């Protein structure tokens, strides 16, 4: 392959969106062509800068409330705006499959029907994940340093959660916070992959045998549950299931290494 052909395909090569035969040819060319290798490096650099520096414009709480209310009121029978915000008419409450409570800008919803099809724990961790993103209460301790985050939990929990930094693998730690699940305080660690946030809920589960599960979907969020070394981990994110699975493997091996040390 000539430089020109290679340069034309570099972008797709970078994304691994090229057929394997061509990809090998490009790799062979790159192995002996410093100028094309440099061009690939520049392209990688600009992609990385874009991911790291471009702002990600999340929806505002008010837009989120409007949108979820639109779906909900649509399901509950096309309420007019005045009725929606006014006193609760008796009839449709029973008919509605979903109950939305709007409290001072924050909202919670419980999809009643989902309760049948999903484990209640999945639902709980997803709700916690959503709340953490909405209520501007993502982190009590914001630090990318595991040696800052871990001691922060001292005295706040009756256990010491394993905290691992996975930034070298592309999942930087952002911080942690206290959360409350199943009637007990738990540690919530926040990681990031590109612009996606990952919540890891963890607490001791001495009875639980080591296990790992493939991602399940709850309200479009992916949830992974693992038990390792007597700790339960619930991992929640809108990140794609493949990368979330990779993250959960890294997390568990990272924890195991930390304990061996």
């Amino acid at each position, binding site marked *: 392959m000539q430089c020109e052909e290679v340069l034309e395909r570099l972008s797709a090569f970078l*994304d691994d969106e090229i057929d394997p035969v061509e990809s090998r040819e490009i790799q062979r060319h790159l192995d002996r062509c410093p100028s094309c290798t440099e061009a690939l490096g520049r392209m990688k650099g600009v992609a990385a800068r874009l991911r790291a*520096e471009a702002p990600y414009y999340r929806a*505002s709480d008010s837009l989120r409330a409007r949108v979820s209310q639109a*779906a909900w009121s649509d399901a509950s029978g096309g309420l007019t705006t005045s009725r929606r915000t006014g006193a609760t008419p008796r009839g449709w409450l029973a008919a509605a499959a979903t109950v939305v409570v709007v409290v001072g800008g924050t909202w919670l919803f419980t999809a009643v029907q989902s309760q049948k099809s999903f484990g209640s724990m999945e639902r709980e961790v997803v709700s916690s994940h959503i709340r953490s993103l909405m209520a501007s209460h993502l982190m009590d301790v914001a630090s990318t340093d595991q040696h800052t985050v871990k001691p922060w939990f001292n005295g706040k929990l009756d256990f010491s959660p394993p905290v691992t930094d996975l930034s070298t693998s592309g999942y930087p730690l952002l911080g942690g916070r206290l959360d409350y699940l199943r009637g007990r305080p738990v540690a919530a660690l926040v990681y990031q992959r*590109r612009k996606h946030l990952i919540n890891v809920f963890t607490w001791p589960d001495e009875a639980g045998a080591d296990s790992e599960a493939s991602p399940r979907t709850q309200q479009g969020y992916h949830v992974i549950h693992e038990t390792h070394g007597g700790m339960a981990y619930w991992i929640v994110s809108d990140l794609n299931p493949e990368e979330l699975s990779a993250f959960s493997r890294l997390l568990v091996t990272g924890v195991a290494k930390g304990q061996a040390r």
Partner: protein
Amino acid sequence: MTHERKSETAGPQRHLSGRELDRFNESVLPYLDAAHNLARYLLRDAHDAEDAVQDAFLRAIRHFDGFRGVDGRAWLLSIVRNICFTRLRGRPSTGENVEFDEAIHTVEEEAPGPEVDLERQAATESVWEGLDRLAVEFREVLVLRELEGLSYKEIAHVSGVPIGTVMSRLARARKQLLLALSPSGPKEKR
């Protein structure tokens, strides 16, 4: 299958059943942030972006019975993107609503093209400014690829173009962004 209506506020209501609402909450609602981010980059106006996303959700709710797939993200983003492009076309001329022409926007270096304009300007400091200078179709493909991590196939679905077009558009977009961000605006050497 319902059909597109002109206005999202007109026409008879179609209501989501409880089961549909569950599916909607699971497969579409989680991509609200992605929808808003895309709209914000395409329209470059905070207020317009919120409006467009709200329109998109109303349309998505209305046409939810037409959603057969499993990929709620691509489905939602394609609605958002179409609404944004319609809005851009309706804006007073700012040079932005010039029809995007793959042939013009992918001219090679020897012909005067967007790259020349980019080089003439001082190199920008921030990625945001760099993106801001690109044609909207280039911003679109970069946001979908780099910020959302969509595959070429998914981008093709969202943007309604063949995968080959996604590939060439993304290559051009990266090259242009690279030029915009280069310190002294050195010309990309081939």
